[in-house]
């Protein structure tokens, strides 16, 4: 499937075509021995270069949906197609490669590795994607790209700083740079401003706007309507289903 995805990637890049299709997605959890139905048949299509915002209250299943789209979790029923290929048909390393090559994940709590500097946190995304020899052969190009991304998110002078020495906004910028290091087809952002003050949140949205203008497909979940307003299209998750 990987090769099929790669072959189609060049055909559809830049064109307004379906990149992700979510079909009748169901997901439940067991909490205290009781089943909790979170998603009850979600259907969704994401077009290439689209910026989609999914709104919903806390606990509505937004993050679960995003995790399923990112191949981090498996549904009870239904599926996710990426460029027409079912993601959950992938197993093992193929699914790992889907996560590292085709999607970039940004989390509310940044999820940076505390032992690594800002630059290393960005580079590790590429290290995970490539084999050791592959990484070493591309090392200078990758490093250049990582430094370019950090420059792009305004952290030129903070590259060697560890996450604990960075503000919340700066950490989120590092997380965005990490998500972009492998030039993913889709950026999946889970409440990217949820842990930031209004001004910092706005600056992150500015960053997303710039990426979107360059053709980056973005799927963002948020509970904040003002943040969602920046997106091209907004959907609301209510009782486990999407409303337009």
């Amino acid at each position: 499937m990987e090769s099929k995805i790669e072959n189609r990637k060049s055909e559809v890049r830049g064109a307004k075509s379906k990149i992700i299709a979510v079909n009748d997605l169901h997901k439940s959890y067991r909490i205290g021995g009781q089943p909790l139905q979170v998603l009850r048949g979600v259907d969704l299509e994401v077009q290439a270069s689209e910026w989609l915002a999914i709104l919903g209250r806390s606990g509505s299943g937004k993050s679960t949906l995003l995790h399923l789209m990112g191949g981090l979790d498996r549904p009870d029923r239904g599926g996710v197609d990426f460029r027409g290929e079912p993601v959950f048909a992938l197993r093992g390393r193929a699914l790992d490669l889907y996560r590292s090559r085709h999607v970039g994940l940004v989390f509310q709590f940044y999820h940076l590795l505390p032992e690594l500097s800002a630059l290393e946190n960005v580079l590790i995304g590429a290290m995970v994607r490539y084999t050791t020899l592959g990484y070493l052969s591309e090392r200078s190009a990758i490093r250049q790209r990582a430094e370019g991304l950090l420059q792009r998110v305004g952290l030129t002078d903070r590259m060697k700083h560890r996450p604990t020495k960075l503000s919340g906004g700066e950490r989120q910028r590092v997380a965005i740079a990490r998500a972009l290091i492998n030039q993913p087809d889709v950026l999946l952002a889970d409440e990217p401003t949820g842990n930031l003050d209004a001004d910092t949140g706005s600056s992150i949205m500015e960053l997303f706007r710039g990426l979107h203008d360059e053709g980056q497909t973005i799927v963002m979940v948020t509970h904040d309507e003002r943040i969602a307003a920046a997106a091209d299209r907004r959907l609301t998750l209510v009782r486990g289903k999407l409303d337009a």
Partner: protein
Amino acid sequence: MFKLLLISKYLRRKLAPLFAALAVTICTAMVIIVISVMGGFLDTLRSSIQRMSPQVKVTTRSMNGLEHYEALCEKLKALPEVAAATPVIQTLALMEVAGQRTQVGVVGIRPEELADVVAFRDALFWRKQMFIDDAQAKIDDPKASQTQREVWQHYKQAWEQLDLVGDGMRLKPSPLLVGSEEMAGLPGAVPGIAAFPFGRRDAQGQYPVSENAIGLELTLTVVPITRKGALQDPALRKFVIVNEFKSGHYEFDSSLVFVGFDQLQGMLRMNAYDSVELDPETGEVLGGGERVPGRASEVYISGSPGVSLKDLRDAVDRVLMTYKQEHNAPWAVSETWEEANEVILGAVKNEKGLVTFLFVIISIVAIVMVATTFYMIVLEKTRDIGILRAIGASRGGIMGIFLGYGLAVGVVGSVAGFALAWGIVTYLNEIQYLLNAWFGWQMWDPRIYAFDRIPARVDYRNEAIPIAAGAIISAVVGALIPALLAARLDPVEALRHE
């Protein structure tokens, strides 16, 4: 690549890997040190026993002795496998030196022949150079007066004339060292250096020149036993100590005295004689005149260069078979040096095995400590594992981080343990001297043990390197379960981990 980056970062972090590495270091060092000391003890014991034990001996394991030992020696010497053979006589005796009486084992020997079979010549302790050096030290002493220097200069010149090894080999006293003409005419004796009831070692376990017993009169009393087993009147004979021997094996050094073969044979009435048959009523000579052969206790044999102990023993057994038939000596048997000393060698060997086993058990603690430490690290790093899985790291990659981490901790701990053990084993005696000097604590009292120094050596090929490698494997095994747990973590759950 990310695995190497994270391993290097985790290694530099906090105390957890340090403690894990420290556990591996201590356990590695502990096992290597114990095996080295016990192995050194066993090696030294073997070599010290070997110095004074023949490779193979022919014995009756009784007090009857071997007749026709000369013929046996000649036949043995004719074998290509045999380098030398010599008869010896052994018995128990009462020894009196300087008014002190103790029980010893007396060995009647032919020194020149014995020196071809065991390291008798090398075991002779006192050498003239020791006396010359001692005299020179006294002469060089800045506190010495001119008169004292002249006296010591005189002694030094006298010592130059000595041939203490020669005296020992001839079992004849040097006139320079005995007080009277009567003593100069006495046969020589070479007692073990620790055979006296009074201790003569200094704190370092050495025997100072001033403590030599050369020239002292030594009296041996033995009880002859007839061929039929009847006790005879004790035989007493005076000797002069011409040298002392030190094999390094305390059992020998503390209980044996070497004297001339002929003297001891005579004392025990084991020499050849012509039989006489008397009338029990009148005492008249009725007949006799048969030559009764002399007896020796044992025949010591050494092998030719390159001949294995087994081949030597087989060759001796072939000769012995004929000898037993020809001379009606069914009890004569051959015995290797290992068989003759199997009790003590077996005890030390067993002790080494037991102590090593116990320390290996203790070392399992290292595995448990590494496992515990890594489990704690996995718990602490649960969210990091979720992040790595979210950005595409495989389960194998996650497992690789923790196994690699275990390997790195194992290598660091093992190398440090190896180095620590090498340092301690190499300088063990110096360390104990320092401990003694600083705290007055002496872990190895050379006045008690058989050896002057703690006999430790590192056997790199058979012991130290396998142990160090085992420690690395143990660390990886310790990291295995936490690594499996880390790899099995659900990424979404891991990301939610607080």
